[in-house]
């Protein structure tokens, strides 16, 4: 004969563990003086090109490194390493986004964290100093899933390229809600596209009033110094 039945309330998010991992990772990185920036945007929005143009404006005095995430290949990491930057490629397989566990693994590979650091409940290991003080996490090209999963980053940047169109904040509002700043890229295409920067500004402000908007071109360098200054100020504060 079977036993009695009863219901147990759980009411817990399945992503709860990632939330704890993210907080632990942020604390651990802050303790080591490392600032982690999460770059989100669609495939082809210009994330790698932005980094290639931005890193020389930050270094020196900052010591940047990059975590590249893609389903496969080392194309982006190779492109940045060819320019002399340290980059680790994270292959996500079928995964459409990064989580804090994957970010921590990449940070350990960079030598920013000992492998066991940044795990909830595990005391921080002093370990060697980090060789980098700002790490860019180039997330998988995706406007949906990347916005839903905390990576442990201190700052989230959303990229929107001019050829994609100015309607993306309306279509993918959650990513723009999660972004501390929005970077409109490929502005050298503005004269060939029907793209309204002011409309993007209004749409982003409607979703996240405190978000900053930058307009840049990695090709011409337009707007890049302003973005570099913004990041330097964020690190200082």
């Amino acid at each position, binding site marked *: 004969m079977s*036993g*009695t039945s009863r219901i*147990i309330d759980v009411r817990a998010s*399945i992503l709860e563990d990632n939330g704890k991992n993210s907080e632990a990772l942020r604390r651990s990185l802050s303790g080591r003086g490392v600032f982690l920036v999460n770059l989100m945007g669609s495939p082809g929005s210009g994330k790698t090109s932005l980094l290639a143009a931005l890193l020389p404006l930050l270094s020196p005095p900052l010591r940047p490194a990059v975590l590249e995430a893609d389903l496969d290949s080392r194309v982006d990491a190779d492109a940045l390493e060819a320019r002399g930057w340290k980059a680790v490629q994270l292959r996500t397989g079928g995964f459409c986004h990064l989580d804090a566990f994957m970010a921590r693994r990449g940070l350990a590979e960079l030598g920013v964290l000992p492998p066991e650091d940044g795990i909830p409940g595990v005391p921080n290991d002093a370990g060697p100093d980090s060789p980098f003080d700002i790490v860019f996490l180039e997330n998988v090209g995706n406007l949906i899933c990347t916005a839903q999963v905390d990576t442990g980053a201190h700052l989230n940047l959303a990229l929107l390229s001019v050829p994609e169109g100015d309607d993306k904040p*309306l279509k993918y509002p959650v990513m723009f809600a999660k972004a501390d700043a929005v970077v409109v890229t490929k502005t050298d295409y503005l004269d060939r596209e029907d793209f309204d920067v002011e409309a993007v500004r209004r749409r982003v402000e409607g*979703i996240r009033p405190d978000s900053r908007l930058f307009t840049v071109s990695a090709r011409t360098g337009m707007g890049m110094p302003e973005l570099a200054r913004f990041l330097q100020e964020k690190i200082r504060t």
Partner: protein
Amino acid sequence: MSLAAAPEGSEICRIKLRVGSLCDAEPLWLQRYFRIAARGTPARDAELAVRRVPAGSTEDAVRDPDSAFGYVLESIEIRDAPVGAVP
């Protein structure tokens, strides 16, 4: 999480999962993967009851992303092992 919430020796007969309105999880695939994941566990014969949150406005999704994109394990229904039963 269901296994962790179930007392030792009990059998899980129902799992209630709330899925956000904008999640891309297909019920058919959730059931399929659940059957695979539950094999050999106390949840092997459990029913996976999926409740999808009704779609709201864009403003709702922005204000409360968890309601749009979250996966919440709401409850489990268990059957305690009969007294004297060997687990």
